């Protein structure tokens, strides 16, 4: 546990976290994974979910959606299309995201349907995870 590695969480608009952490839990497209110092080099895409970090500065979690994580010998870099501190995530915002995923699902055609359905399901699951009500978004 003692070994720390570099961690960056970046969204297109700003850099959210940049510092030392001991472990990062990443919501990868194929399942959650926890990266620690010495993890094999890996690039994975993200599904909407909760990214948790723990390190010398304490534990923290962020809501991320879209993008990818890059793990290498230097550390972990997460590029999320949307990233927010968990505290900043409100029900209203969440409703917007779910509504957007729903709209995408409704408009998807052909091969895109599965992807959109998965995105929507992930969105809803994420809501349950962080204590926001996905059903409210139906209103």
């Amino acid at each position, binding site marked *: 546990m003692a070994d720390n590695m570099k961690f960056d969480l970046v969204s*297109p*608009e700003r850099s959210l976290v940049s510092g030392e952490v001991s472990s990062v839990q990443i919501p990868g497209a194929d399942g959650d994974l926890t990266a620690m110092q010495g993890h094999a080099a890996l690039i994975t895409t993200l599904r909407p979910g909760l990214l948790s970090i723990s390190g010398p500065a304490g534990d923290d979690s962020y809501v991320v959606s879209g993008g990818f994580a890059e793990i*290498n010998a230097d550390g972990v870099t997460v590029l999320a*299309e949307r990233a927010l501190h968990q505290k900043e995530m409100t029900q209203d915002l969440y409703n917007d995201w779910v509504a957007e995923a729903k709209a995408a699902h409704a408009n998807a055609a052909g091969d895109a349907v599965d992807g959109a359905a998965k995105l929507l399901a992930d969105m809803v699951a994420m809501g349950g995870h962080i204590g926001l009500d996905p059903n409210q978004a139906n209103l």
Partner: protein
Amino acid sequence: MANLKDLKNRIASVKSTRKITKAMQMVAAAKLRRAQEAAENARPYAERFNAVLGQLAASVAGSGSAPRLLAGTGEDKVHLLVVMTAERGLCGGFNANIAKLAKTHAQSLKAAGKTVKIITVGKKGRDNLRRDFGDLFVSHVDLSAVKSLGYANAQDIAKDVLTRFDADEFDVATIFYSKFVNVVTQIPTAQQIIPAAYETEADADSGAVYDYEPSEEEILADLLPRGVATQIFTALLENNASFNGSQMSAMDNATRNAGDMIDKLTIQYNRSRQAVITNELIEIISGAEAL
């Protein structure tokens, strides 16, 4: 004397113009600082993103299974030009320079027998291109209501472009925007976004061999559309910074010119006033002499 009053009015009017241009310059300077900050904040994301995409693109390039966004449609007939300008003028040659670059590009494409389609972002570019290429417009994005540019704006534009690409409406897409160098220098730039031309990383030794999850192709298929949005976002931010920089220097010039004009008018005013006084004196003296 009427002449004197006219001059006085003109000086007053130029003075108030100078006040306005001075205020605009200061507003532009404040906005420029914010725009530059936004552009700087966006840089790490774009750099990392492009690097990883470049890496992925390089590894897929030879395999023949590259997605369409990377490999293109295999044809080169229909070109889509996304011309990004500002919503407002009073910024020197900013809008005109971008429009000019787009125009020459469009003309050479037309001369080569290609079909050209144009999407305009920002009102000024649309006005500028309407006369020559009005019949080529396929869409327009209005950003006048947007106070601060967000990634969502770029996503909307990217979505529009990608939908058109999926519907086979064009083969090659190029964006036109102004790259911000400093306050006095902005370079109008054309950048091809579809098929994507990513710089493949030269330092192959730096990278450990990555595992990919899911497969490289799937990641690439997921990331390429986002890459389009990222490039558009970068362009929008650069453009915004360029616009404010350009406006700032234009307004600085205008303020200085107004100052020069006021000086000239004041001299003229004083001269005519002096002439009036001299005239009156001559009249009095010659009147006194006549007695």
